[in-house]
């Protein structure tokens, strides 16, 4: 398999303080890879660098064989990378339908977009019921579903999800992961950032453990799940 995303010695710093200290990892086509770690380990900083929201101070990011280090976020969408940001980030003052349309902003095939929105509605009926409602009036779980649906409308090859389970009730988390698995099964490569290590490793193919800005463990998700060090640090013994 070929690497869809290859990160080499990535460094991110905020005002001289290094949040990411030269990490390397890869995501192969068709995989679901997870990056787990405690709060402040640098998970979101990594994603921010990958999605062009912060400029890395060192290292390279290669996507589909092209160097995309520091490419601004609006240009990444066209290449097939979509980020579903932490805290959902739906447009509260736009309707559900408009939010989905924004996800397809870079595309021009209007008829196909509307068909895909219908597909999303089929996958997540709750959104269909609320299509004309302002997104700000949705519950947290519904907003997360909307954010994922919106990201899918960019027709990404690589979908990056930042803490999709954050702040949601267990039942809702289950639903969200059903949707993520469905998306992965349909062939989209997924990079999943999660604080909930158990959940992430249960669903992903491979995993990387991030600690204070460095990757300390990596490997098959099932193996990591069984690893005593991971168990001790992230799975409550």
């Amino acid at each position, binding site marked *: 398999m070929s690497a869809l995303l290859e990160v080499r010695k990535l460094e991110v710093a905020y005002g001289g303080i290094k949040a990411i200290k030269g990490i390397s990892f890869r995501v192969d086509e068709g995989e679901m890879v997870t990056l787990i770690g405690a709060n402040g380990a640098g998970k979101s900083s990594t994603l921010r660098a990958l999605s062009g929201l912060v400029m890395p101070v060192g290292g390279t990011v290669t996507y589909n064989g092209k160097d995309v280090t520091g490419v601004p976020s609006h240009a990444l969408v066209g290449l097939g990378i979509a980020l579903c*940001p932490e805290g959902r980030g739906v447009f*509260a003052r736009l309707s559900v339908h408009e939010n989905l349309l924004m996800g397809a902003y870079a595309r021009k095939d209007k008829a196909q977009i509307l068909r895909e929105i219908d597909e999303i509605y089929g996958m997540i009926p709750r959104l269909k019921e609320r299509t004309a409602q302002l997104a700000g009036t949705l519950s947290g779980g519904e907003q997360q579903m909307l954010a994922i649906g919106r990201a899918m409308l*960019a027709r990404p090859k690589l979908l990056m999800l930042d803490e999709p389970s954050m702040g949601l009730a267990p039942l809702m988390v289950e639903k969200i992961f059903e949707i993520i698995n469905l998306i992965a099964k349909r062939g989209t490569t997924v990079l999943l950032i999660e604080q909930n290590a158990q959940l992430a490793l249960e669903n992903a193919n491979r995993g990387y453990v991030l600690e204070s800005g460095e990757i300390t463990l990596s490997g098959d998700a099932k193996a990591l799940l069984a690893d005593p060090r991971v168990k001790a640090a992230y799975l409550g013994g």
Partner: protein
Amino acid sequence: MDVLLQQIVNGLVVGSVYALVALGYTMVYGILQLINFAHGEVVMIGALSAVFSSKWMLAMGMGPILALLLATLLSMLICATVGVLIERLAYRPLRNAPRLAPLITAIAMSILLQQIGILVFGRNYFTFPELISKTPLTFGHVTTTPNEIMIFVVSVLLMGGLLWLVHNTKMGAAMRAVAENQKIAGLMGVDINKIIAITFAIGSALGAIAGVMVASNYGQAHYYMGFMLGLKAFTAAVMGGIGNLWGAMVGGLLLGLVENVGLIFVRGDYKDIFAFVVLVVVLIFRPQGLVGERVAERA
């Protein structure tokens, strides 16, 4: 009663111009949280450009309506360019600076544009040719002119058009998305700088039309005319709820009405005071503005 009706008509005409200018303030505020104090001067540039270009066109033997149309279009083009340039040169470099810096820059741009106005056009009062008839028309006890009717109708059409653009087009959705969250809009593939530039261009072009309206209504234009007009329109935008398009329109019309109906009770010299007193009262009792309200945003 007759006086009241007459003042309401006058108020609607003036108010519709305030509303057009207020839209420029509110659009830019909505997207950048910046009070573009130079907007009044953009209106002035629009008015003075139209004075010179329409006179030239009349001298070339063009009909008054065609001259008005072409002069207005030219003013819109000039103002849109000026607006985009202001954003590009003065505001964009300060986009991540503390809020005070762009605010002071905006005031500086306002003064700078006035001075440029003097350099380009001169310090005089220039008469605006009568391109649409100002012969009084009397309906019952109310007197108006074709020019005034034109101002009101065009303003309403423009406002409707802007609302349609913002709420029913892809670009409009992108504008609202950028206004709400620039980073996320960027993730969707929206070129934020382009949307901001478009916002300035539209706001400035509306300002140009407002400038032509003011010049035609009072029959004159000069380099300082944008200052008070801008301040009033800004007041209207704040009164309606800055950042909100409906707010700017309601605020503009209301300010025009308040000023003109107020004239029944106070002398003309106090007209401006009246407008600002209303602003203070609104801000005390409804600081978010008359129309301004936020949708609950759940985490």
